[in-house]
């Protein structure tokens, strides 16, 4: 008879442990901490590649050459399309924003709004023309034109064998002079990952 209560208690404890195992658990992570779960392209890849690309880009000859031109101080840059040609659905806008942030924060270049953003801003100016006080209006036709456009591609090669895959990511970025279509800088960053899938699960 004395064993029954202890059995019930054990079962209750087991149920509690099982329930605890099923509850959602959230742990806040430092944004610089790399966490690889599936092996797919993630925020760490996006951040590292954009930082390295921009550091490389800003240390190259095109910047000095531009500054050396008469009447020029800082080049104006716009980020164009970064095409995802990889095996994964990658949110390229996150990567593009990382690139923009790194470029703006370097203080070495001016940055202009993207095509979509410009459309909204122009509409706002039109609205100002009608509704804003005259001394606060911003006139049309005074936009800063970009000197260079940065475009890029993300490519992958995947070599699978059973439960293991080697994932090779190659990010190519190109800076093109809008005045004469010259490619003034080409950057490349490679990432290789070995991904092993578990053979067993619960």
């Amino acid at each position, binding site marked *: 008879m004395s064993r029954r209560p202890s059995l019930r208690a054990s079962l209750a404890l087991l149920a509690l442990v099982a329930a605890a195992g099923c509850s959602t658990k959230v742990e806040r992570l430092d944004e610089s901490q790399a966490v690889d779960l*599936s092996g797919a392209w993630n925020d760490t890849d996006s951040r590292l590649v954009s930082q390295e690309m921009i550091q490389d880009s800003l240390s190259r000859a095109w910047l000095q050459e531009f500054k050396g031109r008469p009447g020029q101080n800082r080049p104006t840059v716009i980020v164009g399309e970064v*095409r*995802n*040609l*990889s*095996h*994964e*659905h990658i949110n390229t806008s996150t990567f593009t924003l990382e690139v923009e942030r790194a470029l703006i924060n370097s203080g070495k270049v001016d940055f202009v709004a993207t095509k979509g953003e410009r459309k909204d801003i122009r509409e706002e100016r039109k609205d100002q023309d009608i509704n804003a006080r005259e001394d606060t209006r911003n006139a049309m036709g005074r936009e800063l034109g970009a000197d260079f456009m940065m475009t890029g591609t993300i490519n*992958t090669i*995947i070599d*699978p*064998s059973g439960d293991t895959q080697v994932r090779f990511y190659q990010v190519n970025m190109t800076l093109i002079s809008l005045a004469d279509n010259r490619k003034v800088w080409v950057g490349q960053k490679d990432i290789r990952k070995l991904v092993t*899938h*578990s*053979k*067993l*699960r*619960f």
Partner: protein
Amino acid sequence: MAATRVPVLGAAACLAGLAGCATFTETIQSTEVSLARHQPQAALAAYKNRTPAGADRVLDLMNEGMLERMVGDFDASTRTLEQAKGAIEELRALSLREQTLSVALNDASKAFIGEDFEQVMVHTYIALNYLERGRLDPARVEALQIDLLLREKAEEAPDSPYVEDAFSRYLTGIIYEDEREWSDAMIAYRKAYEAYQNQLESFGVAIPETLKVDLIRLADRMDLAEEARGYRKTFGISEVPSEAELLERGEIILTVHAGLAPMKRERSTTVLNPNTGRFLRIALPHYRSRPQPFAYARVSVGPQAAISSRVENVDAIALKSLESEMPAITARAIARMAIKDVAASAASHSGGNSSSSNAAAGVAGLAINLAAVLTERADTRSWFTLPGEIHLARLSLPPGDYSMRVDLHGRDQEVLDSSEIKVSLHKGEKKYVSRHWIPTNLEVKP
């Protein structure tokens, strides 16, 4: 001894309770009724109203994704099918718990991850969703994933009848060609051509007329003169519009998804073993084909028209895939029957010397035997909302705004359905449109 038999009886009762569960096929009847009435929204609601089984998550996502597509909500369909893709990836690893359950109960207690062709179809339909939403680059991602998955499947089971998916290869070729990636498009078209040739006997799909033209055009574009000559001779086609001419015009690519994939049914046998007095039961799945009155589609804009070709016979692929797996399924069912019988035998012989304990053991043995018989159900889960067949037509037109007519014809040339679709085409642009059509009679063939 009697006390130890109480849990045995309890377990047997639990198993018997589980046996009360209907097979998957029995739970989808209201969804099928709505589909036959051409009410995909009601079909989606009916499907979502079912009590979801944990092991069927991937199956539910596949069916919901397809029903959302039929409703015309391509973005929701993509999201749902993406979830299915992720869940398949998670469930590919072996679960010892599920393996044990499948031996104790039946194959349907294992998590469903779909047959190889169903897994490939997840990618194919995501790609079609993206194409119809005008998003070519994400469709290209799916094309790469299809290639990767088919390579993996070919490595795992090189002798499987479904070692390639001709239509999925063909679709990836169309995507690459739309991306102006000529060499990748050529490779994909060649792979599709080889697959149609190799699988003609198994799946009965002849090389689509559109693919013949595509192969010649791409071979010309890539200056593969010898190869182009070979295709012209083999197909008996002399003139095809060049890639440059095609790029001056726009193109409509229509896919028709006709009927429903075959339905899995259970075939079972229960016999009484006269030597032991215990029941033995074996339950195996088999496919029953659905009616397919659809024959071809005609897409027309004024006098310009194109006739569709059949590009995928899902019905035949499903039947052949199951056929190749039947030896393993049957072996598992026989082993399960033997294990369950041994368990019932052990319980009925667990009595002591007294007549009361012998009687109790007999009851326990009978209970286990009954539970074993009742839980023996075939795994009839399948992606039943897949079409029975897929057809494709390509119509090249000068840039402009059009009201395009799509006529779906039956086997006796009769028009099953007609619709008008407004399309705006730019120079060099491809527009992807689709129609899902399901016959009102979904009775399976005897």
